[in-house]
């Protein structure tokens, strides 16, 4: 079949909501876009473990410690689901991890911000995971089958992350004056970076059009961002806290919240590697990878040895 016909048949499937599966024909650019997006998503889960695992030993109670461990473990699992989904497109996991460690591949910029107080754990759960969930719920219906299935699994687990974050802030918001101040401070620092998680404005996003046509994405960056603002602007009332945006206001006409301008200069600067913690995150990843090398080798050697023993017997 000539390539034009294949492409037409492919787009036809997408238009008719038929999922694309690993061994189906697909345009190279579709394969590449999905590989990039899914592996970046996987990297984000893995790097996302760093700021949180850092607080496990400092969690204020055994309950919070158990919750945090479970959450970090989930993120590791999510990374695995996503690497596995990306691998079905033909790129090996080793290659993807190598691209992360070398700084060639990107991960969500949000994890290049530091977590300075315990309240940050709550803010990360509520705001960062909250923003991630909006994106992930949309991706449950993405056109590439393995990605969609991984997202369904992830979404089921992720909602606990956001709820525990909000609940943790709720406790602080009813605590001592110092705890209240800590809660507000964390929200102040995480609000704008969370808004940036949805990516550049639609008018400046280069990948958006094609991704929408291929139904990799089903909502634009700005649509998702607006959903997020509307959701959080209501929820924060329950905390009795304030979002650090003087322009935030309900727009009766649009039935949405208006919000202030994002600092795009900061956004691009962090994407390009100049955030507060970019280097630290990559160093931590490389350290873990290198120091774990002997474990990977030993496991292979042990499996070999066992296999040889079996064949000899």
């Amino acid at each position, binding site marked *: 079949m000539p390539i034009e016909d294949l492409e037409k048949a492919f787009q036809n499937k997408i238009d008719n909501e038929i999922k694309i599966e690993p061994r189906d024909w697909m345009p190279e650019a579709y394969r590449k876009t999905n590989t990039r997006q899914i592996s970046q998503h996987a990297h984000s889960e893995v790097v996302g473990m760093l700021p949180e695992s850092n607080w496990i030993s400092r969690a204020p109670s055994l309950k919070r410690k158990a919750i945090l461990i479970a959450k970090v473990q989930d993120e590791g*699992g999510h990374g695995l689901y996503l690497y596995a989904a990306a691998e079905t497109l033909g790129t090996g996991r*080793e290659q993807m991890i190598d691209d992360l*460690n070398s700084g060639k591949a990107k991960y969500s910029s949000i994890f290049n911000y530091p977590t300075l107080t315990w309240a940050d754990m709550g803010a990360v759960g509520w705001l960062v995971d909250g923003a991630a969930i909006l994106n992930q719920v949309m991706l449950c219906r993405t056109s590439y089958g393995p990605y969609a299935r991984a997202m369904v699994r992830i979404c089921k687990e992720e909602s606990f992350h956001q709820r525990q974050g909000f609940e943790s802030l709720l406790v602080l918001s009813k605590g001592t004056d110092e705890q209240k101040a800590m809660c507000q401070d964390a929200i102040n620092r995480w609000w704008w970076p969370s808004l940036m998680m949805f990516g550049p404005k639609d008018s400046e996003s280069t990948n958006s059009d094609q991704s929408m046509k291929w139904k990799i994405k089903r909502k634009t960056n700005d649509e998702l961002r607006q959903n997020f603002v509307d959701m959080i602007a209501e929820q924060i009332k329950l905390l009795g806290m304030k979002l650090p945006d003087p322009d935030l206001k309900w727009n009766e006409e649009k039935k949405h919240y208006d919000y202030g301008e994002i600092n795009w200069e900061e956004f691009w600067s962090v994407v390009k*590697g100049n955030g507060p913690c970019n280097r630290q995150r990559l160093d931590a990843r490389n350290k873990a990878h290198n120091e774990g090398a002997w474990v990977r080798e030993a*496991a292979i050697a*042990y499996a070999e040895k066992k296999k040889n023993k079996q064949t000899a017997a």
Partner: protein
Amino acid sequence: MNTYFIKKFLYGDIPEVTAGASDVKNTAAPATESKDTWPLWEVFIRSKQGLDHKHAGSLHAADATMAIENARDVYTRRQEGVSLWVVESKYIHASNPDDAESFYTPAEDKVYRHPTFYDLPDEVKHM
């Protein structure tokens, strides 16, 4: 409220003193899909007694024991299963999606294989 002193833990999760990591060099060994790579396994889960094992996803592991343990850790953290199968992916044979049309068409025009094909009088009731 902002007169309160917030204790910020700057150890552990420290922002860069000199921001910027674009110069970070990869210290890891170059990626190779060599014999040192753990093989890929497909994971099947029985969610409860009486149901089939269903494909859940895949993972890498050095051997079957490790594959089952890893599958337990990543696919059944919330009691999703009571039994696990793992199969090394290379042993799975699949039908070819390109042939799907001709491969599955023979079933298409055999409506008489379905019970609804047969018109029976209402008096028959349940059949």
